[in-house]
């Protein structure tokens, strides 16, 4: 299937509260194409979980249109069952009885789907071999989370929902989970994930949406967002100054870069320039140095992290709180 797999138009989710209805999601639009990995980011209370729960069919919406694989997730009966057969969900809490083993759980869950993966395949895929026959109650948090993922993919889903899939993982467990998720995308699974971890979104997602106060603040590929909303830090050393003094050099740099928005810090002979126009800075600085007879060395350009972008965006947006 090509084209959009998830379509959300003007979604509104409200909660009752003593002071009147509280808008957790406020006119959200979202389109996710087949095979895409989409990460929904936002601070606590931004409305990500509410949004995802509506798309999963676990929460009623106030208004708006939602379709997953052409089906309204609020449907019931046979239509709902049809949709459930084609999606997989990793919830924030595990939800498998602690008294059984992962293998028993997977056997049971696989029985409900029309074309499930084999239990053995899923145990391999999610790296459960070593504890497949241990009681779930004895597993560590990270091991249980892998089981959650296994349960979510046993039905061979076309769309996978991951709500904060690696919260509480240590760094190596997170890396493993990322590899698992990357493996799934090879099969063309469309994935919608929410996360607090910016590096997770950066590593996994084709596209990222940042939510704030129930609205979509900005959307794009991690690269787009970094370019459009973040500033790179360039660093260069002036290794041969010829006859020029420090003051003269600083003045020259300021003159060369005057048309470009930037910020400079001098650390001895080294300068650090924060800018969103790295190409412009590079060109002007290089031509100025050549004409002034200076030698520039040890160039480096550091792209902004998604985290920086995220922080910038959220600082620019007024702070407020609503239900998550």
């Amino acid at each position, binding site marked *: 299937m090509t084209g959009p797999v998830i379509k959300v138009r003007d979604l509104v989710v409200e909660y009752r509260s003593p002071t009147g209805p509280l808008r957790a999601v406020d006119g959200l639009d979202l389109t996710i194409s087949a095979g895409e990995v989409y990460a929904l980011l936002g601070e606590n209370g931004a409305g990500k979980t509410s949004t995802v729960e509506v798309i999963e069919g676990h929460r009623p919406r106030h208004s708006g249109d939602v379709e997953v694989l052409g089906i309204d997730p609020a449907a019931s009966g046979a239509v709902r069952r049809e949709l459930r*057969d084609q999606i997989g969900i990793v919830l924030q809490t*595990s939800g498998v009885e602690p008294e*059984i083993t992962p293998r028993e759980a997977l056997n049971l869950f696989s029985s*409900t789907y029309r074309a499930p993966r084999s239990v053995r395949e899923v145990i391999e895929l999610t790296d459960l071999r070593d504890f497949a026959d241990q009681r779930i109650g004895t597993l560590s948090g990270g091991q249980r989370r892998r089981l959650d993922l296994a349960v979510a993919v046993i039905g061979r889903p076309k769309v996978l929902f991951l709500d904060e899939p690696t919260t509480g993982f240590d760094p190596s467990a997170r890396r493993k989970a990322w590899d698992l998720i990357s493996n799934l995308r090879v099969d063309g699974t469309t994935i919608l994930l929410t996360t607090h971890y910016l590096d997770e979104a950066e590593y996994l997602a084709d596209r990222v949406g940042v939510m704030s106060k129930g609205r979509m603040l900005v959307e794009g590929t991690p690269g787009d967002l970094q370019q459009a909303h973040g500033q790179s830090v360039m660093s260069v050393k002036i290794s041969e100054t010829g006859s020029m003094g420090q003051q003269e050099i600083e003045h020259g740099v300021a003159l060369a870069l005057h048309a470009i928005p930037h910020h400079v810090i001098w650390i001895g002979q080294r300068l650090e320039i924060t800018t969103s126009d790295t190409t412009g800075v590079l060109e002007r600085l290089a031509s100025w140095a050549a004409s002034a007879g200076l030698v520039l060395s040890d160039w480096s350009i550091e792209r902004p992290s998604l985290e920086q972008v995220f922080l910038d965006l959220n600082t620019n947006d007024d702070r407020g709180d609503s239900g998550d």
Partner: protein
Amino acid sequence: MTESQAWPQAIRLLLLQTSHQLRLFLRVPVAVFFTVALPFVVLLIINATSSERVLSDTNGEWPIDAFVCVAISAFTAVSATFTNLANMVPIRREEGVLQRWRSTPLPVWVLVGGHVLSAVVIAVLSTVFMLGVGIALYGVRIALTAIPALVLTLLVATVSFAAMGMAVAAVVPTASAASGIANAIILPMALISNVFIPMEDPPSVIDAVANLLPLRPFVDALQAPLHPMNPAAAPLWGSLGVVALWGLVSFVIAVRQFRWNAAPGGSTRRRRSRPQ
């Protein structure tokens, strides 16, 4: 690709869910203890401490230990269905198990049916065990002609009490409240329903109330076909009707009030399995 494939057979799914619930039951030692071992021990103690007496009712005389054995057998069936479901379903809700299943294509009726059917199986097995103890130790006799009435009574009552358990599970706010509420319902009811000690000449108000509640009619309906002097070949329709009516009302409540999620902020830690 998947669209062309048939759904798994409903009966197979129901059997898998039922055996899953049975397996869980056997792996929760506390549940096994309260459902099977405790009524057995209570029966031994009551009959060891009661003086040798006979009870008279309209149908003739009962040895008291046989009378108590049948009454506690009925109570065992109620523990296995009502108490067990009222306790466990809210725990599973708080563990997120119900929500997890809701994310799958499993039809809701199969999920609930698996819970109910497994409880009925446990109830029937433990009642048969208790009656076996009665036959071995307390002179309980099962007349062949009474077996159809006995089976029908057990089935109607266990399904009805299972529905009552699901209704309590649906309306209680938290798992820890559930266990208290279930016991607060069942223990006082047992005391006025001839379960532990048969009441002789109870105040008429208590008698009337007990007859309107579901437990006493179930005890009566189970005792009738097992009466040592005049085993009834037909079920005690009136009493069974009261039980069934409670079951039906509970079924409606359970369906209307059923919740998949724990109330926000209302969860408690699960108690019935071992700590990690």
